[in-house]
């Protein structure tokens, strides 16, 4: 039996169901609407497991799921060695979001990472602590900042409403997922020109750890043509 993990709630679940349905695999919740039990029609030997999108990377890495649907951001953040334990089968074209770094819009002098690094040294000297960046994507942001050579900052954990952290004075900048940028703007923030850390979307993953033959499912979903995907690229830095 091949176990397929799918986000258990909301739009992400519905869009996943639609995506599979267009490829001849019908997923549905069985029982009451509140019960997390699923069923699969159109292919035998597949068991549907409904669980939180945030737990799917861990379950794939442990081999308890053979395949699973979750965001690129969550896989890259939660699995340090993700390419050793999972491989992407298909990008699904929804759940599009960018992991970005944003600063207060009124910092007119800070438009790119070079500026952020430059003011971080001074902020530390004046305030006695490192400039704080609120995020829940600790590993990805740390890696990105190291690669880009930003120093004298610190990460503070923020599991939700991250865009409000600057206004609440719990951080000076934020790193979070955004799809339209509207929440960023509404909270008086501005995305850095070169502050795109990762482009994420819902992706079907295959566990390299789980034992079992997934080829029937993979064949079925890949051999149906995919819809074209919109380009969500951010602007490049001019500085």
């Amino acid at each position, binding site marked *: 039996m091949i176990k397929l993990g799918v986000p258990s709630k909301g739009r992400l679940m519905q869009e996943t169901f639609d995506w599979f349905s267009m490829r001849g695999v019908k997923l549905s919740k069985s029982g009451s609407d509140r019960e997390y039990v699923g069923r699969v029609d159109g292919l035998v030997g597949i068991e549907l497991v409904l669980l939180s999108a945030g737990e799917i990377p861990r379950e794939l890495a442990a081999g308890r799921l053979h395949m699973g649907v979750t965001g690129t951001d969550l896989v890259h953040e939660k699995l340090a060695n993700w390419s050793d334990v999972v491989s992407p089968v298909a990008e699904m074209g929804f759940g599009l979001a960018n992991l970005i770094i944003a600063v207060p819009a009124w*910092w007119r002098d800070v438009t790119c990472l070079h500026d952020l690094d*430059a003011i971080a040294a001074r902020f530390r000297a004046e305030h006695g602590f*490192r400039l704080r960046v609120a995020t829940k994507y600790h590993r990805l942001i740390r890696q990105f900042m*190291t690669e880009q050579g930003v120093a004298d900052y610190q990460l503070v954990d923020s599991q939700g409403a991250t865009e409000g952290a600057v206004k609440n004075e719990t951080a000076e900048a934020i790193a979070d997922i955004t799809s339209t940028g509207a929440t960023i703007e509404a909270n008086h923030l501005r995305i850095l020109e070169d502050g795109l850390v990762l482009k994420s979307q819902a992706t079907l993953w295959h566990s390299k750890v789980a034992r079992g033959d997934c080829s029937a499912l993979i064949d079925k979903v890949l051999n149906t043509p995919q819809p074209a995907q919109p380009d969500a690229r951010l602007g490049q830095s001019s500085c």
Partner: protein
Amino acid sequence: MSQLRGETARLLTVFQSAGAIRVEADILQPADVLLDLYGEDVRARAYVTSDFLHGEQMLRPDFTVPVVQRHMAESAEPARYTYAGPVFRSQDTGSGRAAQSEQVGYEVFDCGPADEIEAEVFALFHQILTPLGLTASTGDVGLLIAAIEGLTTSNARKSALKRHVWRPLRFQSLLLRFSQPVKEKVLGAGGQLIGLRYASDVNERLEQLADEALAPPIPQSEIDALNDLLAIRGNLPAAFAQLQFLVQRLPSIASAVDHMSARLSALTEAGVDVAQIGFEAAYGLTAMEYYDGFVFGFYADQAGWPAVASGGRYDALTRVLGQGRDFPAVGGIIRPEFTLRLSDGDLL
């Protein structure tokens, strides 16, 4: 395990015979000190624990910080310390290093002539490690810092370069930026004043940016000389000859080169065959962020091994941890697990 204990005890005895006092350090270290010192990067390397009462603690990633703290808090006198025990490095970055490994260290706090102290520490490590067939590489971060001081450019640019000496990619990108005419910058649109940054800070930086826009590029001849400095490598006498020649183009490194000359003499006097020692001007600029002068490492001819020993001068670290005081300091560590394998002939 008992063999490892024996090897550790042997190394401790060598360091104690050289005048070091044995000191201990807690395995759990307060995270804030290490974070303030090393920045976020340390979280990727150290094990961070959480405790509902005491907050974040770290399993010690090295002994240097607690040993320096102890010296700065308790003593104004010269001192030599030795210590031994496990250090912990998390595998978040996939470095392939063991998560727990043993270190035996030797740290010297001494205001005496810098070249002699450096030679003393190196010669001691050399005497322990050369019989095991290890080869030594050395460097001197002070050369690069002196070269930056001598550039024809603003103090702001020099500070930015000095701040990133330990991040070679960022350093090169800054150097490239400063070697070209400044591109016109499109400022942000502005908005509601939120957060802790001072408005005066933004205004001052805007003024700085206006000054910066008029700043002439660093002359290409100076950039070339700086990159020629970073490319110097060879055995110690050969590298020294190249450096002496480079002084004509980088006059600001003259005193750092004199210091190296004195160190060469002191090393020879201490019985080190300097022709067998490597030197790279860029050595120690990646993994050793707190070293700010002479640096060294000893390597085995074994694929995948870390440096079997490493060390150097870290005056700036004592300044940061000394809360206003500083103390010239040179030290290093040996990994007994590896010296043991070399002396046993137990190799892959």
